[in-house]
């Protein structure tokens, strides 16, 4: 009970304090510091107007500075020092060197890259699919709110939900995890071939085709067949992107072959979260499950913003529903797709709760944020932990720069 009173009084003090600050500081400014009367009335008003914005901004600026800007600098500093006894010594990049010599770090980096590609792509794709499909049916809004629902669930709650799905029982007991129950239905027959070989193969092929298309779209302006070529930086970025896409496409094709050659352990319940490499995907599914709703809501609004008559014009031009979707609608909402993609990318870079709750980084599922948490609060190695935090910051920076650049462009 006392806790509730404590919280309530904090709210009262916090809110009251804020109001009091703003009211009193404005009053002070207008009545005492620069009163709008007397011989200097005009000058005083101007001065008061020049000061007032800073009165309005002050609490926010202090909070932002103290809680976001200062820590970035402080973390950067901490990553360069080592605590030795009670003193801190500057050690240069030693922390980074130590970090990069750890295999756990590289495992985290690899997994983070995996997350970085898979989660935003899958969430955006599913979100786009859900948005397009639900926009066309009468009960679409109901469907939307169900798909959107996981947004409200905490990462930890979601982890519990999915842990039940992935649960494993010994082979002679009834399976209580949905995934194993489904898995045990497959015995190598026709359905197994259809669902476990052909379907994934088609999916992989589709992704590979999409990637190939991406390579082509990126290279087309560089090769000079249409459109302007742009600056050298743009060309290099395009080449880099194309190379990455091409590499991914090759991986997809490699997996495609793998789907048909691998022997599947039919009839044996699997402990999904301990299968190295693939268990990452089972963790990612949790985040995809959560983020798809976000992507869907934003993309659905964007799709509705596509002018109806461009779609009608396309119908008259003879486009079928798929062509309308991919050649008329999607290009028009490309900007929004990028926004959704980057937003989810940021979420992915910070992902921590899911890994902590599901595997705690065991079985090769470590990610940077959890690695960093381990270093800070389990190994108490502030130096290496800060170095890991700086790596996350570094990965976020391109998006940060891009966002700021866009915002400035928009304001002009």
């Amino acid at each position, binding site marked *: 009970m006392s806790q509730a009173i404590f919280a309530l009084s904090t709210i009262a003090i916090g809110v009251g304090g804020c109001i009091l600050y703003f009211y009193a500081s404005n009053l002070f400014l207008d009545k005492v510091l620069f009163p709008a009367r007397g011989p200097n009335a005009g000058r005083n008003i101007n001065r008061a107007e020049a000061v007032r914005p800073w009165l309005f901004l002050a609490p926010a600026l202090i909070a932002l500075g103290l809680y976001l800007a200062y820590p970035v600098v402080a973390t950067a500093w901490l990553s360069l020092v080592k605590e030795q006894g009670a003193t801190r010594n500057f050690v240069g990049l030693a922390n980074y060197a130590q970090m990069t010599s750890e295999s756990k770090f590289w495992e985290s980096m690899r997994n983070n890259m995996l997350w970085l590609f898979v989660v935003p792509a899958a969430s955006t794709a599913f979100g786009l699919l859900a948005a397009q499909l639900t926009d066309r049916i009468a009960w679409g809004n109901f469907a939307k709110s169900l798909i959107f629902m996981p947004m409200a669930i905490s990462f930890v709650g979601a982890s519990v939900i999915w842990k039940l799905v992935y649960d494993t029982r010994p082979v002679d007991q009834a399976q209580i995890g949905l995934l194993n129950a489904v898995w045990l239905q497959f015995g190598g027959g026709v359905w197994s071939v259809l669902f476990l070989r052909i379907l994934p193969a088609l999916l992989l092929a589709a992704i590979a085709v999409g990637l190939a298309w991406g390579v082509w779209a990126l290279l087309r302006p560089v090769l000079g067949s249409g459109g302007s070529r742009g600056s050298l930086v743009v060309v290099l970025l395009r080449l880099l992107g194309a190379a990455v896409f091409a590499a991914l496409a090759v991986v997809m094709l490699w997996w495609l072959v793998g789907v048909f050659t691998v022997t599947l352990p039919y009839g044996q319940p699997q402990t999904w979260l301990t299968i190295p490499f693939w268990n990452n995907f089972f963790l990612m599914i949790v985040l995809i499950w959560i983020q798809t709703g976000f992507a869907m809501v934003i993309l659905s609004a964007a799709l509705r913003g596509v*002018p109806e*008559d*461009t779609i*009608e*014009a*396309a*119908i*008259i*031009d*003879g*486009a079928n529903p798929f*062509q309308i979707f991919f*050649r*008329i609608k999607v*290009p*028009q909402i*490309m900007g929004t797709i990028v926004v959704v993609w980057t937003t989810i990318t940021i979420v992915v870079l910070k992902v921590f709760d899911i890994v902590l709750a599901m595997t705690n980084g065991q079985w090769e599922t470590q990610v940077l944020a959890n690695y960093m948490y381990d270093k800070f609060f389990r190994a108490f190695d502030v130096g290496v932990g800060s170095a890991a935090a700086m790596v996350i910051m570094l990965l976020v920076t391109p998006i940060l720069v891009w966002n700021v650049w866009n915002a400035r462009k928009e304001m002009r």
Partner: protein
Amino acid sequence: MADLKLIDVAKGYGDVKVLSNINLDIKTGELIVFVGPSGCGKSTLLRMIAGLEKITGGDFLIDGVRMNDVPPAQRGIAMVFQSYALYPHMTVRENMSFALKLAKKSPAEINAAVDKAARILQLTPYLDRLPKALSGGQRQRVAIGRSIVRDPKVYLFDEPLSNLDAALRVATRIEIAQLKESMPNSTMIYVTHDQVEAMTLASRIVVLAGGGISQVGTPLELYERPQNEFVAQFIGSPAMNLLDGEVTATGAQTTVSLTGGGTAISSVPTRESDKGLKVRIGVRPEDFVPTDGTHIYQGTVALTEALGEVTLLYFQKDGDKAGIVAKLPGIHNELRGRVVRLTADPRKVHVFHDGKSLLYR
């Protein structure tokens, strides 16, 4: 060749009927204009012809083939939208070639068609631009160009000029007229709410009102011999004046004595039995002439608007006397506040009974 035939075409949403009993024959080479007040269903009718709205009753034929269930792309039509509906992510060239690409035409064929259309519409320098880098008039031409390259049997225009400013509107109107001249074998249907566009462009005008066709005819037919009061008032600006009266003399010419005082003689013939019939006569403002003899209307000029070549005289409503507008050549500001008597040539006096012209009985 493209003859269009609409037989008892209707459109309803559930129980609500927005259009019914639309019967229309459109011959190859015509430029038909649909006009009517907003909400009369003219755009809906056009979209039904395009296939963007389902036809819920009757039949629609192109060259004798029933089109009701044919998808838009296979009807041999092209449409120019009010907002142009250019694909914003495609260059002018891509916009114009999109339909041909979907139809799997060869690149050479596509380029030839696009280049030709661009030449006609003077868009050649802009082919590699995105729509956002074009002016309103250029966008409009791209929209038209996108239709031309498909070489359709029927062109549909949905208020194509309403997003342009006044000067550009006149210029583009003339361009469309010239385009029509250069393509004598194509049929065009044009929707507008602007009667000037209708009068200047149309080979025939379809006036739509109240969910049906009010009158179909050449512009001059509609102007000179309107079938009903609605068309009479819709065509021409300011609108035709209507005055209540009673037939007093019949024959080759009809004499109507008007409720507000005054007598009108019309060259509309009437039968002996029409004597005593309650009618309304209609006189266009520009057909009034001042007179000292028998008058159709006598009243005090409440307001004058001198437009230069003509002056509009506004008469206020006064008891039984209706308020009317007259248009006199020249400048006549001095008439304000004066009593003026007006009459009109009997050939210019229309007679309506129950809303319909006695000319068409």
